[in-house]
């Protein structure tokens, strides 16, 4: 792949990327979320069309306009969420994907081939089993088998280990190894360093849509990879640290040994102990999908604890509903305002009112005091230095304005506890500073903040205390001045923990 460029509205997802994939080699694509790994592979597999650049196959330029073209070039991709049909058997699923499916199924022949291929690569699976009854590890085997039977020579695996248990990961690596020996080319998309070092031959690190480096396995160690993955981003404005000495007051939010059940692809929290004290910003670091979203949801009361206790303002809130949590003075800034925070076909002003309708209700709820809403918004926006239109539909606001609206809304009642995910996503530099200052100001006035972010620099700048989540567990707890990006990077990618366990 040469000079691959792909822009989405607002972001340059891939910028002049060169990538070489060789047969008999495992090529790892490493990078933070949003670094452009998946985009690049989806271009290769024909899901996205490239804006500029060229794809060469065996030296010949090719155009790939659809997954169909990609398959004709003997490529195959295993997605994060599998694409099997649960109601059919393994054999039927595999047969569906064969390049030339005959009108009448040659069941015996297909079964024979499945058995051959699966024995050869240790992908043992019963062809007659129903897909709906397979475990996630087995599903993945079927996905790989599917590609092998369809004659793919280049396999793209998108974060294959995300959903696997440790022993399944080992089995997968064995499969990859034997495939490699037989001349297959494998691309492994991941952000887990340990896996990369374990099984990759060539490593390309992406950062912010660009190649930060392509290295051979023998050339790198963990330090080198981490520094390439999380290099300091220039120009991010830093809010000055103003250390408030932690008072001896009771914590605003306290989680004691909290566990949750995961649904679907969610991550379950495992034994979380956490305290947010007054006048303290607690930063939560972690690669997305390691439990940060769930942590915020548990604090809000959206997910129930299967074990453990939750205290807010020193009262037991374990089984309280979201509105009770909110009414007690907790604000919530979710990671995606458009889907999680606003009603798109209502006006901005109405959207601001819906979090606290009781406050603005008059005549026992028969009428709403819109002037009071407006006064509140004006006060809040003035303080933050934001401005956005109030009388248009919320869906016509830009992403940045939406986020401003949500921040302004949540700050109206001067909350004592703020749970913020990706606070500054989509904001321009000035609004970013304003939003951060709002947080710091709230902190200085004695509020507690639980700040969930992926940007480590920003986290280190803002937090008074920092925890690191990995697979739903807290694996690190620091004061920001006692740590650095590298140490956190280690923990986020799971490398440190594994060493301890080994």
């Amino acid at each position, binding site marked *: 792949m040469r000079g691959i460029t792909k822009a989405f509205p607002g972001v340059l997802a891939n910028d002049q990327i060169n990538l070489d994939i060789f047969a008999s080699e495992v090529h790892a694509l490493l990078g933070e979320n949003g670094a452009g790994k998946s985009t690049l592979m989806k271009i290769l597999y024909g899901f996205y069309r490239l804006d500029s650049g060229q794809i060469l196959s065996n030296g010949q330029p090719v155009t790939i306009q659809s997954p169909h073209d990609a398959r004709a070039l003997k490529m195959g991709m295993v997605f994060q969420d599998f694409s099997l049909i649960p109601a059919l058997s393994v054999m039927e699923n595999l047969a569906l994907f064969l390049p030339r499916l005959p009108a009448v199924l040659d069941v015996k022949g297909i079964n024979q081939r499945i058995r051959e291929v699966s024995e050869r690569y240790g992908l043992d699976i019963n062809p007659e089993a129903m897909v709906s009854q397979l475990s996630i590890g087995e599903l993945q085997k079927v996905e790989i088998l599917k590609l092998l039977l369809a004659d793919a020579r280049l396999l793209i695996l998108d974060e294959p280990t995300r959903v696997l248990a440790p022993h399944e990961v080992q089995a997968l690596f064995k499969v990859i190894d034997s495939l490699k020996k037989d001349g297959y080319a494998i691309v492994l998309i991941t952000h887990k360093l340990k896996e990369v070092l374990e099984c990759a031959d060539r490593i390309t690190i992406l950062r912010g849509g660009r190649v930060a480096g392509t290295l051979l396995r023998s050339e790198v160690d963990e330090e080198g990879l981490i520094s390439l993955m999380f290099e300091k981003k220039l120009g991010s404005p830093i809010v000055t640290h103003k250390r408030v000495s932690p008072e001896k007051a009771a914590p605003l939010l306290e989680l004691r040994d909290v566990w949750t059940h995961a649904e679907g692809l969610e991550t379950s929290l495992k034994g979380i102990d956490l305290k947010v004290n007054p006048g303290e910003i607690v930063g939560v670091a972690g690669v997305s999908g390691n439990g940060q979203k769930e942590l915020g949801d548990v604090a809000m009361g959206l997910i129930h604890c299967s074990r453990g206790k939750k205290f807010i303002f020193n009262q037991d809130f374990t089984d309280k509903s979201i509105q009770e949590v*909110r009414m007690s003075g907790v604000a919530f800034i979710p990671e995606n305002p458009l*889907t999680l925070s606003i*009603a798109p076909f209502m006006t901005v002003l*109405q959207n601001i009112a819906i979090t606290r309708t009781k406050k603005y209700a008059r005549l026992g709820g028969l009428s709403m005091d819109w002037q009071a809403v407006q006064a509140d918004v004006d006060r809040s926006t003035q303080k933050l230095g934001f401005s956005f239109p109030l009388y248009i539909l919320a869906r016509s606001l830009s992403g940045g304005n939406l986020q401003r609206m949500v921040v302004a809304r949540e700050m109206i009642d001067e909350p004592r506890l703020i749970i913020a995910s990706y606070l500054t996503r989509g904001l321009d530099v000035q609004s970013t500073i304003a939003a951060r200052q709002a947080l710091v100001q709230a902190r200085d006035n004695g509020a507690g903040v639980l700040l969930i972010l992926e940007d480590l620099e920003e986290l280190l700048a803002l937090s008074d205390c920092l925890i690191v989540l990995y697979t739903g567990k807290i694996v690190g707890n620091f004061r920001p001045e006692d740590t650095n990006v590298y140490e956190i990077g280690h923990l986020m990618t799971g490398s440190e923990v594994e060493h301890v366990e080994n």
Partner: protein
Amino acid sequence: MLKTSEIAPRFPILQNKTIILGIRYFFMILVAFLLFGIILVISGKDPLQSYKDIFTYTLGSTYGFSEVLVAMIPMLLTALAVALPARVGLINVGGEGQLYIGAAFATFGALTFSNLPAWLLLPIMIILGMLGGALWAFIPGYLKSIGLVNETITTLLLNPVAPKIIGFLIFGFWHSPMDTVKTPNFVAAARLPTFFGTRIHLGLIIGLIMLVLFWLFMKYTRWGLEMRAIGNNAQAARRNGIPLKKYLIVVMCIGGAIAGLAGMSQVSGFYGVLLLNFSMSLGYMGFMVSWLAGGEPLGILLMSFVIAVIITGGNLLQLTRGVPYSVINLLLAFTLFVVLARPNLIKGKKV
């Protein structure tokens, strides 16, 4: 006013959104009548004459017009029973069943407290009717709120159950000495008052009041605002601290209560007796009206009037032209089809 003169449109009347909407619907119904005309021609009837019959009968005479209003009453309410839950994203197809159970509860009141005076008995029947409908709607509402079953399925599947319960009650306990398919006639105190010597009864006023209340409720109240937020984005509403489950159950029950009220007004105002299978798809009719009207109160008023004209006119065609009644269902189906298909040509006129 100032604004319209500033833009200086050629047809100032077209600036009014409501009027445009009205024109759109008028054209759509025209198309439906054209299609139906073809059916009439095929079956050897004169479509122009048939339409003339329909309109002179329904709109040209006081009696006919009053009959249209009578047919409209239950549809106003059953349409509202669909429109209200639709505001929080619930699809209530169970108006039919809720109406039956409401009617049964009201009948229970009428038969049990028959010696009470009208000013006491009628409110009791209204409350019982609403309670019955609400209970019937509670089942799907609750199952939906705990995330177990989709309300569209449950409301629909409960519909055929309700008339069986009515049958059980009538055959088993309530049937009149003369006739096993209905209860004894209600006492006068259990009948909603009628007006001007026609069959128009108090249900019409109740229906209109409910429509106005619905409009005021959604527009001005705190709960209307929260309901709109849920209908817009339930996920966000929940995170913003709006008690989603409570709303799903309560709104479903209120919808059921309104359908139950329709049942009460039918047995008390129209029939004066509880008949087996009396509804004849009034609940489904309401579903159609609500969807045609886009859930808007004014639209419900207009559409239920139009449907009522078609139904009463159809009854007449049966007599004068020998057209089977089922053909009228064809005309209804055409109307539904045309409005739902909503040709782009007509949509383009929207300002």
